């Protein structure tokens, strides 16, 4: 699924890839790690990844930032005091650890608040559905381009793992 997902991202115009890995999208980061043509920048923190993506956008690219939902917490200040005030867009691909309360303890609280948290941040998002992922990416990308704000694709377990 990782290959198909990256092909879809490229078809929707994404051409800069950075982030911090999660086991829930391991099939994607394995390809990004192995194939230099993507120019994937393995970031040290999720907010730093948003900074890298902002620089790439200012340089003319359309960036994707991959992160675990725990990284949303790290990223709050970058989202609200960089992306959302400068109109700097990005697609955030956010894994949903702790969905339905079934996960390791450190993921349970963020798993429970992931959707309310995105709504609080006023960030348009879709919960990834493998059957309509192309349409979801199309809609999110259109919103992102029109508003020039970051948007998120939330990825549950079992879609991009392998």
């Amino acid at each position, binding site marked *: 699924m990782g290959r198909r997902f990256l092909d879809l991202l490229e078809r929707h115009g994404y051409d800069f890839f950075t982030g911090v890995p999660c086991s829930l999208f391991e099939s994607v980061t394995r390809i990004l790690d192995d194939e230099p043509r993507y*120019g994937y*920048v393995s970031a040290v923190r999720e907010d730093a990844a948003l*900074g890298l993506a902002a620089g790439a956008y*200012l340089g003319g*690219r359309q960036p994707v930032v991959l992160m675990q939902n725990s990284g949303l917490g790290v990223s709050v200040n970058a989202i609200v005091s960089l992306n959302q005030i400068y*109109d700097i867009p990005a697609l955030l691909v956010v894994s949903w650890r702790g969905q339905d309360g079934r996960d390791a303890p450190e993921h349970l609280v963020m798993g429970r608040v992931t959707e309310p948290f995105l709504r609080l941040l006023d960030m348009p998002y879709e919960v990834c559905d493998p059957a309509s992922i192309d349409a979801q990416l199309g809609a999110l990308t259109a919103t992102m381009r029109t508003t020039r704000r970051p948007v998120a694709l939330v990825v549950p377990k079992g879609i991009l793992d392998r």
Partner: protein
Amino acid sequence: MTRADAVARVAASLGRDALAVACNGMIGRELYTRADAPTRFYMIGSMGLAASIGLGLALVQPSRTVVVFDGDGNVLMNLGAIASAAAAAAANFHHVVFDNAAHGSTGCQRTISDRVPLEDVARAAGYRRCARVASAGALDDAVASWFDAPGPSMLLVVVDRANVPGIGRVELPPAEIAVRFRAACTSS
């Protein structure tokens, strides 16, 4: 040397096509007040991220010189950005750190850069060139050719702790700064 003077000296040494990303706080305000141009990006929030923004830009615009105007507080807040810049080994990435060992815009409270030499951190991480200058003469000598040689580089400029009077805020709306800067980055 005052920080505003040091910022102006570095800005004056840049070629017309060079792109500058300034951190939040007094440094961006001083660059805006003394040497505004469309090739400058002033980060007014998101403290700690100027070097990451500069690195992302340097990676996608490899033919342009990218200079990050950073401060000790900003560098310390996201020290991992030094590791990222070193690992990426972008030859067009230059990090100028104006170090007053204090948080200028919140009342000059102490940072810890008086005990942690940031250019040594950058050198250990793998920057190609690092230097420390502490006088206007040494700064002018350094910047005469500093940006002509490959990075990643760090030029640490020791500046007075106090702020100089007469420095305003960045008056351009953030979205306008981004549009103007993106146009400057993607033209020519």
